[in-house]
């Protein structure tokens, strides 16, 4: 267990250091999300009441597509200089690598969300009518739901002819999570219904797919 956690920690630190020095992923994600915010706000120009209804969907579409940028970069980095092959022949547990990548992506997407949320509030005149603190667990659980499966499918798409297939695999599987995130966010913003059911569903989704990823990742990494 300590081996797993120490390897995970080292890999996460390495990824963060790389990202800190290059800021490749974060810049691309920020630019992409900014574009979505501006274009939608510009074309709909919603008043406060309307934007409450649509913001849940908009926010998560922006974050989903921005997260794809990070997910595509995850493993591409390890392909240079055959780092991934070196990892595969080392005795380090495969799940440590997976967890490190998932946690790294989680951190990057969370930073993006933290930076983008004020912009969303300004452009869409958002004010939560329901219990606003609930947005924090929704954001955390929702981000993990996107990132954990995304990291897994990105590893799978490494072995296919087209990297873009990752999004194709991620989207249908993520439908329940997306539905839960969007509905929970809308419920909190509008304040008419409780978001509890959706938060529980998101939590269940996270637990089920985190376990599934940890079970299957080693098989996928060593697939020959």
């Amino acid at each position, binding site marked *: 267990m300590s081996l797993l956690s120490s390897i995970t920690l080292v890999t996460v630190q390495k990824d963060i250091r790389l990202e800190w020095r290059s800021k490749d992923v974060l810049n691309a994600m920020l630019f992409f999300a900014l574009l979505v915010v501006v274009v939608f706000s510009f074309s709909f120009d919603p008043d406060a009441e309307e934007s409450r209804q649509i913001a849940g969907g908009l926010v998560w579409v922006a974050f989903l597509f921005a997260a794809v940028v990070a997910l595509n970069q995850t493993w591409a980095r390890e392909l240079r200089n055959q780092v991934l092959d070196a990892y595969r022949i080392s005795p380090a547990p495969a799940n440590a690598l997976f967890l490190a990548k998932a946690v790294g992506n989680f951190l990057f997407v969370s930073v993006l969300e933290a930076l983008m949320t004020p912009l969303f509030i300004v452009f869409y005149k958002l004010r939560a009518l329901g219990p606003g603190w609930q947005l924090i667990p929704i954001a955390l659980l929702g981000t993990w739901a996107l990132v954990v*499966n995304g990291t897994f499918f990105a590893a799978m798409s490494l072995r296919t002819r087209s990297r873009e297939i990752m999004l194709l695999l991620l989207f249908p599987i993520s439908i329940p999570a997306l539905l839960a995130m969007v509905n929970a966010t809308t419920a909190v913003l509008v304040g008419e219904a409780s978001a509890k059911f959706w938060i529980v*569903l998101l939590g269940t989704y996270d637990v089920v797919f985190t376990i599934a990823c940890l079970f299957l990742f080693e*098989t996928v990494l060593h697939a020959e």
Partner: protein
Amino acid sequence: MKRVFPILAILTALLLSYGLYLALVVAPTEQTMGDVQRIFYYHVPSAWTAFLLFSLNFLASIQYLVRRNPFSDRLASVVVIAIAVLTCIGAYVVTLPEGVEKSAVATTGIGIALLYFGIRKFFSEQGTDILALVTAEVGVVFCTVVLVTGPLWARPVWGIWWTWDIRLTSTLVLWLIYLSYLMLRRFSDSGQTPVLAAALAVFGALDVPLVYFSIWIFRTQHPQPVIGGGGSIDPRMLHVLLINWLAFLSFAGLVCWSRYRLEVLQREVEEAQALDSLADARGTR
């Protein structure tokens, strides 16, 4: 073996035409919906066949993954038996929702275990992979039939083509998942495809209950299931429905079988070609 296929094909054709005759002529006309309701004899058997094929795909994929290592193979067998036993006990101990038959739940549990061990006994490791591919392909076709006939029926009866109802949505998501499964198989390089596809099939199967529950709290508009559910059905209609289901099942089985043989042949050809080019390379050196 060569004679069996044409005989089965003729039998299936006869059964399908008999089913068509029953559905269009013999079955009584529904009181409120009229003749539109007859699409039911195609819609429901296709749905059942598609779900059966997707379950087979899931079981075959699990088989493919666990057989790579003897320990996980044994573990999976124990888990499957445990699930079957627990469902049987649970069906009679736990109070089920209204309209769900105890015996139906128990039969499902036993049926899953029988299918699992049937696949385990009759298919080799590569066989399970081909089975998974074939059932996904044919399942997507039947699922498409369901998704096309559904709106055709809904338009005159509900007045709308489509609604985000629980069964419609979960069927659509299921269809999307298996479409992405087939895409993955198409885009992937030959050597690693089976493992990746099997992993995706497991993800897809885990997703289905979550999709179902996520739409559960919206009120459902779809008619209640007629068998094992709250609805009731005229026995003559039920007879026609079951004959049609039998016809569809044998048709699906037939298509799967010929597709299976085709895939086996194709893999043999590919292997022979690879060996050939290896021998060529050695010869010229």
